[in-house]
């Protein structure tokens, strides 16, 4: 009985956890409910992942209304791994968040914080699981609205303006998507993605499809912070509570990228993207300039959160570069990097969170010799940093390596070279931090408490679990690649 309702449960569990948390009110209780709900989500996602591997696509008609009239959820090899990824990251970060939230947020507001978190999670999962174009918009707004709230919880007053700016830009992005979906509906008379994919080739008006395509892709570019539409991201990641940043960095942009992939390849089809729509004229340069310029910008940042935020935009550039290759190998690389980068960047933000927890800031020049006071945190940062650079036996290496060989396979040598160049830039910005942490003598008179002053265990353990996970996927890289390869095959083959 339950097994057949899994796709709905995936959304409903966090959705119902939110009001439950509001009712519970007490902050410990709120946290426990969030954690339990989140782990249930992980279980459901795991089950779905297994089911998809065994049986292939799962289609689920919400409320018993059959598609294309009703809203349909479907799970296939593209979104099942991401459901698992997003719910696991959220679960780990919720576990991690307890102490950091307790310290930085007024205790009377904790229940609201966790409720917003659960809503955000259900929005993100909904975007992943739904097979209905309009439903994507609805879930996008659910997740976005709760994200604005979560960001505004930040301590610095600039969190408010960051949230506001993100709100305006995010709403524009969502509205663009809405416009695009409207045009699609006008041209085809359907909202179901599977149905759309079949109807678009014979649509009455090609112009309407083209307009729909433009609006949807721009809208999703905003939401997934693709250069040059990334400007909202830096402040949002910088000033949000650090656990929120860790959560968003691993999930929000990745889910939007998934929707982009879905629309580009499943709904519109490869032919549309690159023969008629010149998307490679927009998306590819955006990707390449993104990972080059943003890596340079990251080098000059003095705040670790901001540095990592810009590095995120750069890493999204890699993903988009893989996508814009539009080959099996390219999409495999992009998809693998979605997974690897989500894990690595979340771990990095978590380690920065530990630093902030103890020092109250993450200002690079003031982290002299941090290894003496917070060795475990520093090691976590360094190990994840190596992953970000793409050192062999880390996840980052797997996806970058696949990306480079994919671009060579297509004959895009220059891009492969530029990816290498930007890896060198990554070495510089991570290296600057490591240099300060390990090698600098303390210059400031008394900037830090002396002796060991490690973050609490409840923060360290989830962080190391995540790092272990990403290292596992680095060493056994072929597993990520198998999953990504299946996803790419599914995307390129349309709905089958």
């Amino acid at each position, binding site marked *: 009985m339950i097994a057949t309702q899994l796709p709905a449960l995936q959304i409903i569990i966090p959705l119902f956890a939110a009001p439950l948390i509001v009712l519970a009110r007490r902050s410990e209780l709120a946290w426990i409910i969030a954690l339990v709900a989140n782990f249930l989500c992980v279980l459901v996602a795991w089950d779905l992942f297994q089911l998809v591997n065994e049986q292939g696509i799962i289609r689920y008609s919400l409320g018993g209304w059959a598609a294309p009239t009703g809203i349909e959820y479907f799970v296939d090899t593209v979104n099942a791994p991401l459901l698992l990824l997003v719910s696991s990251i959220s679960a780990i970060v919720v576990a991690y968040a307890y102490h950091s939230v307790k310290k930085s947020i007024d205790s009377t507001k904790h229940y609201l914080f966790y409720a917003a978190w659960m809503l955000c999670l259900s929005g993100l999962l909904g975007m992943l699981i739904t097979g209905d174009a309009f439903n994507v918009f609805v879930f996008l707004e659910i997740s976005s609205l709760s994200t604005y709230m979560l960001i505004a919880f930040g301590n610095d007053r600039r969190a408010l303006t960051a949230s506001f700016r993100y709100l*305006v830009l995010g709403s524009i992005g969502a509205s663009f998507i809405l416009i695009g979906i409207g045009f699609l509906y006008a041209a085809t008379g359907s909202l179901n993605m599977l149905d759309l994919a079949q109807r678009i080739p014979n649509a009455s008006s090609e112009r309407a499809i083209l307009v729909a395509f433009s609006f949807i892709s721009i809208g999703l570019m905003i939401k997934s912070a693709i250069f040059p539409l990334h400007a909202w991201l830096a402040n949002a990641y910088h000033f949000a509570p650090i656990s929120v940043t860790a959560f968003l960095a691993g999930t929000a942009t990745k889910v939007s990228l998934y929707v982009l992939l879905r629309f580009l390849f499943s709904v519109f089809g490869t032919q549309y993207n690159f023969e008629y729509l010149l998307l490679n004229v927009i998306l590819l340069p955006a990707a390449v300039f993104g990972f080059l310029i943003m890596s340079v*910008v990251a080098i*000059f940042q003095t705040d670790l959160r901001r540095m990592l935020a810009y590095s995120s935009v750069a890493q999204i550039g890699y993903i988009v570069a893989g996508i814009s290759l539009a080959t099996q190998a390219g999409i495999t690389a992009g998809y693998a990097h979605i997974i690897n980068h989500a894990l690595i960047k979340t771990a990095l933000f978590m380690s920065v969170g530990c630093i902030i927890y103890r020092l109250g800031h993450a200002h690079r020049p003031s982290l002299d010799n941090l290894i003496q006071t917070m060795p475990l945190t520093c090691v976590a940062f360094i190990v994840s940093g190596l992953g970000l650079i793409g050192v062999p036996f880390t996840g980052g290496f797997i996806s970058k390596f696949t990306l480079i*060989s994919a671009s060579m396979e297509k004959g895009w040598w220059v891009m492969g070279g530029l990816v290498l160049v930007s890896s060198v830039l990554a070495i510089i910005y991570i290296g600057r931090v490591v240099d300060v942490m390990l090698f600098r003598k303390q210059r400031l008179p008394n900037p830090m408490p002396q002796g060991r002053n490690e973050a609490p265990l409840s923060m360290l353990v989830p962080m190391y679990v995540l790092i272990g996970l990403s290292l596992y996927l680095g060493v056994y890289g072929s597993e990520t690649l198998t999953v990504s390869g299946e996803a790419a095959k599914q995307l390129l083959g349309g709905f089958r």
Partner: protein
Amino acid sequence: MSWLIPPLLFFYGAFLCLVVGRKQRTFITLLIPVVALFSLLMLPMGNMAQVQFLGFELIFVRLDKLAFVFSLIFIIAAFLASIYAWHVNDKVQQVSTLLYAGAALGGVLAGDLITLFLYWEITAVASVFLIWARRTPAAYATGMRYLLIQVGSGVLLLAGLLVHYNDTGSILFEHMGLVSTGTLLIFLAFGIKCAFPLMHNWLQDSYPAATVTGTVVLSSFTTKMAVYALARGYAGEEILIYIGAIMTLFPIFFAEIENDLRKVLAYSLNNQLGFMVVGVGIGTELALNGTAAHAFCHILYKSLLFMSVGAVLYRTGTSKASELGGLYKTMPVTMVCCLIGAASISAFPLFSGFISKSLILDASAKNGYYLVWFALVVASAGVLSHSGIKIPYFTFFAHDSGKRPMEAPVHMRIAMIITAALCVIIGVFPSLLYQLLPYEVDYKPYTTSHVLAQMQLLCFALLAFVFLMRKGIHPPEVRGINLDSDWAYRKGLPSILAMSAAGATQIATKAREGLQAQASDWVFTIRRLSAPGGLLAKGWGVNSMVFVVTLLLLLVLFLNLK
């Protein structure tokens, strides 16, 4: 079994060293090479420890006779260096020594290019700590230069292997030859680590900067791993013969006038590599045997020389020839060992250099490379001049410096005596080494004519030394440094940059005066744009963000609907 392959054993040792106390660490550094030796001897020939990775089959162990002889000498070198470093109580050095030796061993055993790349980079990163362990700002800067070049070599290797894979679909590390862009890139990567002319200077720059024991370790692995890689991938590539010939000649002149004895040895190392590279270039069985044998002997006697100079440095605080002299009185054992090392490197009969260098010389003569052969003969006389005479003479004899240091500590003496004994044993019983070589050896080094020729060459060179000393023509040892190609990036580039920056400022000033306009150079612009608060890095307002969105939308619509 694949968890007990020699390179991994070294890594386990390094990890153990991280967590245990001082005494156990010293013990581990000695134990690991012994265990690794047993592991190596137990390994059957052929491919092992194959791992599927990203759809590639990585071969972590490919053992054949060529790989075996290099692995064996690496393990021996690691063991000797560990005895020599018995006194060291520095976790950094001990861990990095083990990591470095293990990685070099892994590189030699690697059966595919990806594995090779992996170990290639680990050797770079692990070895730099032997320089940083000196713990001075200067050593840090030198280490950074070293690391940059070594990692650069790795990047070239990666690029080359990608191109090569794209061309051929194979990542096997086998004979490749210089046939395509990919193989050229790999060749250059090997060339950097092998210190080809004009790519050589990292060696002389960094080895004298390492710690006393670190230099002994450094001298054994990186370059010989590169020689092995060349022998594996580019045997018989004719250009190597000429590269090698140049390598044997030009460092002689630098070594002759260098004051820092460890730098002299670094130049001499470069010159000896030249012999090996020539052997690889000729590529016949005899020549490759010569390369392998020479690498084997070279690691021993070069370690021995670095050990003795290191012992002097350890006891006197300097390794500069101008400050030394007359030490034989108080460091006689070190002196004798140094003399044995000097005799070995100069290839006196009954010492190890003689039986390995002859192979390469004969190979070049037999294959008709007469000019190269002659260059090698001249270089042999040169080797005598700097390593054979200069090192022992100016350290232990010459004018009395007045220094009366203690004899080297017991463990150093033991390490030196064992190494010296090995040099002599190999020199006296060449068949011991010959049976290890990759191909059948049908070669007799001790023929009358051969011994006579070598003795004539060396004795007359010695005579020339005496003559030049007596006449006062031989250049004295003076303090100072000699410029080499590192000038280009240590002085030239910075001053060009400074000059161009100054020029740019001038132009900018003029432009400001003339045109009332701002002009600034691009580095500054990037910095200004990217630093916190700069255009690219500040929090944009809603207005500009929406503006960019609108522009992009219009662009996309225009492109799509045109």
